[in-house]
């Protein structure tokens, strides 16, 4: 029997909106606080969500973030129709970045985004294709509050 979601919402993320970037992640944090999750779990979700949201703002040209909250796990799915990631293994390396000066002036573009998301997630999946876009699936289990490297990381190019 399928587990009923406690909460479900899709957020629209505007591309290039550096001023408003992060608002969806702050709202997600408040939603999880309201439901009563452990502060450590909430922090992991908020950090992963914020980094992923910034990527969609900075690189994806805007898109959507879907939040599904279940008793045992929180799932975030981010989709954009941006340029895609040419080399995912390279993008997963700490310090590798293709950020512009504008992105760096906002305090991002240190090449830590995807590694930070992986560190805070239990399952992490990237599906990307050049000139078609990127889909990021992030699952964070609600048991255990410390951040850790995801047990599963997979990368599938579109077929």
């Amino acid at each position, binding site marked *: 029997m399928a587990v009923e979601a406690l909460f479900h919402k899709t957020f629209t993320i505007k591309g290039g909106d*550096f*001023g408003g*970037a*992060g*608002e969806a*992640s*702050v709202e997600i*944090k408040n939603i999880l606080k309201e439901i009563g999750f452990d*502060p450590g779990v909430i*922090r992991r979700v*908020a*950090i992963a969500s*914020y*980094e992923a949201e910034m990527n969609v703002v900075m690189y994806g040209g805007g898109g959507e973030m879907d939040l599904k909250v279940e008793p045992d796990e929180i799932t975030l799915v981010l989709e954009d129709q941006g340029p895609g990631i040419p080399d995912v293994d390279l993008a997963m390396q700490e310090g590798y970045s293709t950020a512009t000066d504008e992105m760096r*002036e*906002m*305090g*991002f*573009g*240190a*090449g*830590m*985004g995807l*590694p*930070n998301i992986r*560190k805070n997630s239990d399952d992490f999946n990237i599906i990307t294709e050049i000139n078609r876009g990127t889909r990021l699936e992030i699952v964070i289990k609600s048991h255990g509050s410390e*951040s850790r490297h995801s047990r599963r990381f997979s990368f599938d190019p579109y077929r």
Partner: protein
Amino acid sequence: MDLREIQKILHAEILSENVDLSMDVPRVIASDLMSDVLAFSASGAILVTGLTNSQAVRTVEVADLCAIIFVRGKRPSEETVRLAEKRNIPLLTTKFPTFKVCGELYSHGIIEVK
């Protein structure tokens, strides 16, 4: 050590109104790169930074940090100050550069985030 003592040590000006300066601050993280801040378990720490835009405030909120000290006399926009006040995040600014801020805080017993 609380924020009021830190304000005195750094000769800092408080930029946000109606904030709680009695909060205890045991740890500090200093960075202009918000992803670096997010990469550490910096919960409860104060952020020392030269980055004055809204993303500094959002990073503090997302990562559960407690306050921001802007260095070299930098001042955020009114909009950023209002955002921080809305979220109850104290903002301070000091004329000291990052190195001196960290040195002063370290010599007064505040430790870095590891």
